[in-house]
């Protein structure tokens, strides 16, 4: 479906990454694969370093750390947000919502809309849609959109398919009304029939965690993971992205009556460098206009990779100027979504370490 918004802006972005950094070379010792073969994979996929939590750190820990940083720096007032949207696939609890946990821990006001969304790699866009919609209400003047995941805790270190790429992180985007009436075009598609391409089979009520679901199994490609762990069908996900994303971007630009050349940056979710380069090649987008360096530096942190790509690559530019950006997220659900939006100037644009 096509979506359209106006008079909305992202006024600031903060990314939070754990200080704990692991390298692909360290991870290799856990894989049931010869080192030379793993090193080839590292080179092709762009795996190098990734940030993962050290110990039982939860989604709300990263989010509260980031929000406290914004309160302490005076960038955002503690009672300044009227809604808190938390997009995560790794909540602190099945219930209550992680947004309620964060609200309570930070002592935020009661006159507030707290909402959790269970989404992943398209979660930054889904969260923006919800934030834009909430701002229709006169009582909602400012929304804190938190994307956060600690998926390393649900990923088997012996799974070469997932562990080397996974990264933990949070982002906080402050979303507000704007005087700029330029349309923000977006689109969204979902296909639940392909839901098993990315899933954690156990841990919900359909298959509760048990000693049996914790047993490691070989997937036939020498990857060992339990039903308690993240399971990704790499081939199916790769094919999904290559088939669905280019036409989605073409549709978006056509609806917005914009050409590829009108877009300064294509800021896409970053599963790995190979997949992004193949997308860029399909759409004739120069690599320098589609950053692909987040996985090699921080890991794939689901819905956080788009704000992380913005903060890491465009910080200086967005503190003083603006760009026309095409955002795209694709992943769990399966879900795929894109948006053409002007970004900047931002009140803040920062990346901090969680310690």
């Amino acid at each position: 479906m096509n979506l359209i918004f106006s008079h909305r802006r992202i006024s600031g972005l903060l990314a939070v990454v754990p200080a704990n950094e692991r390298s692909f070379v360290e991870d290799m010792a856990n894989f049931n694969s010869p080192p030379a073969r793993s090193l080839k994979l590292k080179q092709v996929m762009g795996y190098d370093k990734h940030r993962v939590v050290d110990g039982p750190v939860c989604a709300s820990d990263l989010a509260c750390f980031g929000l406290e940083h914004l309160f302490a720096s005076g960038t955002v007032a503690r009672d300044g947000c009227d809604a808190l949207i938390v997009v995560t696939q790794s909540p602190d609890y099945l219930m209550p919502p992680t947004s309620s946990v964060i609200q309570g821990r930070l002592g935020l006001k009661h006159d507030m809309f707290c909402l959790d969304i269970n989404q992943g790699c398209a979660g930054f866009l889904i969260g923006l849609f919800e934030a834009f919609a909430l701002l229709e209400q006169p009582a909602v003047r400012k929304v804190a959109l938190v994307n956060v995941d600690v998926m390393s805790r649900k990923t088997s270190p012996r799974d070469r398919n997932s562990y080397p790429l996974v990264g933990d992180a949070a982002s906080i985007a402050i979303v507000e009304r704007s005087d700029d009436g330029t349309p923000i075009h977006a689109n969204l598609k979902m296909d639940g029939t392909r839901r098993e391409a990315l899933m954690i089979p156990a841990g919900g009520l359909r298959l509760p965690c048990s000693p049996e679901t914790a047993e490691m199994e070989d997937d036939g490609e020498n990857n060992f993971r339990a039903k308690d762990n993240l399971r990704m069908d790499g081939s199916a996900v790769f094919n999904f992205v290559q088939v669905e994303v280019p036409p989605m971007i073409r549709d978006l630009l056509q609806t917005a009556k914009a050409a590829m050349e009108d877009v300064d940056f294509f800021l896409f979710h970053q599963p790995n460098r190979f997949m992004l380069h193949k997308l860029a090649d399909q759409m004739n987008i120069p690599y320098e206009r589609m950053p692909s360096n987040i996985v090699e530096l921080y890991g794939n942190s689901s819905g956080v990779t788009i704000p992380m790509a913005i903060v890491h690559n465009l910080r200086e530019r967005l503190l003083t100027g603006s760009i026309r950006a095409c955002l795209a997220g694709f992943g769990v659900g399966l879900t795929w979504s894109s948006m053409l939006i002007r970004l900047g100037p931002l009140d803040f644009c920062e990346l901090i370490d969680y310690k």
Partner: protein
Amino acid sequence: MQTIEHILKDIRPEFDFTASENFVDDGMLDSYDIVTLVSELDKSYGISISGLDIVPENFRNIASIQRLLQKYGKP
């Protein structure tokens, strides 16, 4: 330019690729080996194999890889 056989041998030296008609079913190439193979073919032949062509059927055996390369104007 490396031959297809050389590239395959470099990725999985333990297998004889001329003896198989289905590398995937015979457990000689997994999904990540296919990604490595595509990257090596791109470099070696100066092409960019479309993401739409990166499906197991195109990497079943040496003949299917040759057919794929022919699509990109390579012998």
